[in-house]
């Protein structure tokens, strides 16, 4: 009997996880996806799972004009470095039940850059701010760059441009650990 039940339970668990995952994701075309929520553990895991690469975390919202202004430069810089020497994490802080639609519409207007966007649930605001930088007050846009050991080396507050991003990334890549 137990030889019959164990595989059945595994299949059941797999189905449930698939269902959960389908509820939480929305495709934006190309390879892009919107993940409806991210928890502290997942964020910590991404920051710590470096595999020899640095990590750029950009926090933004569609309601934030300076975020919208820097978005094309974020797309350009991540396109240049991502998957080679750098991982990229896009954290969106739009609020409300329709946040994923707002983000999907925005990404569509930006020609669907193709990266994954995680939406931070509003009730997780304080945990995420504290996790990213205890001295950060929550004003956006904010960009954090971690070295390949997972240590935060750069904190860029306010709208940046391609040159500022590139300079910070190169500084960290060229630094001896």
């Amino acid at each position: 009997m137990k030889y019959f039940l164990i595989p059945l339970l595994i299949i059941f668990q797999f189905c449930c996880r698939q269902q959960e995952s389908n509820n939480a994701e929305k495709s934006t075309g190309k390879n892009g996806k919107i993940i409806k929520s991210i928890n502290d553990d997942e964020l910590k895991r991404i920051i710590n799972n470096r595999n020899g690469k640095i990590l750029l975390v950009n926090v933004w919202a569609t309601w934030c004009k300076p975020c919208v202004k820097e978005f094309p430069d974020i797309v350009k810089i991540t396109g240049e470095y991502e998957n080679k020497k750098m991982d990229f994490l896009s954290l969106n802080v739009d609020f409300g039940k329709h946040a994923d639609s707002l983000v999907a519409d925005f990404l569509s207007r930006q020609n669907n850059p193709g990266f994954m966007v995680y939406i931070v649930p509003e009730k997780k605001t304080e945990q995420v701010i504290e996790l990213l930088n205890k001295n950060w007050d929550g004003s956006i846009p904010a960009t954090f760059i971690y070295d390949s050991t997972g240590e935060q080396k750069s904190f860029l507050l306010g709208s940046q441009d391609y040159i500022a991003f590139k300079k910070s990334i190169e500084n960290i890549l060229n630094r001896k650990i």
Partner: protein
Amino acid sequence: MFRRPAGLAIFIFAFLISVNNLNGTNLPIRTKKAENFSLKDFNGKVHSLSDYKNSKAIVLMFIATQCPVSNAYNSRMVDLYNEYSKKNVAVIGINSNKQESTEEIKDHANKYGFKFPVLKDVNNVVADKFGAGHTPEIFVLNSNFEILYHGRIDDSRDESEVETRDLAKALNEILSGKPVSNPETKAFGCTIKRING
């Protein structure tokens, strides 16, 4: 707790805590005790912080006319004023955004029925002194201008989803003579557009 300052120079100690700087940014400097300041409201009337030293608490709200997060709180700011001004709490709005004119601030205040003064912080001098970084951002002071609460109004931009009214809780504790149980809260908001920003 809200003893009147004994006519001495109360603005001497504005001790500053420098916030850790990583590469690439200068984080705001947070004050623990405010200095007096004077700013004009949208009608040209000068308001000094010292004008409100007899209040049981002073609520300074850094707000904006164009920020959707700040605007989501307009009616809650009016409610806050209506509820706490009766309890001798001063409620003051401050606009430090360089691109939002006095005329725009006046129209915005009239449109949303702000009965509290909204002061224009030209060159973001006061925002710099407080280390205010975004809107809406709240500072609650006692009559000695010590900052007792700093942070958000509540935990949701959508009023129907509010679970913790952080500012109201802090004010109620202050009015009851209790220490503020959660003196620092955080929320996402629009960056204050500074002259050098």
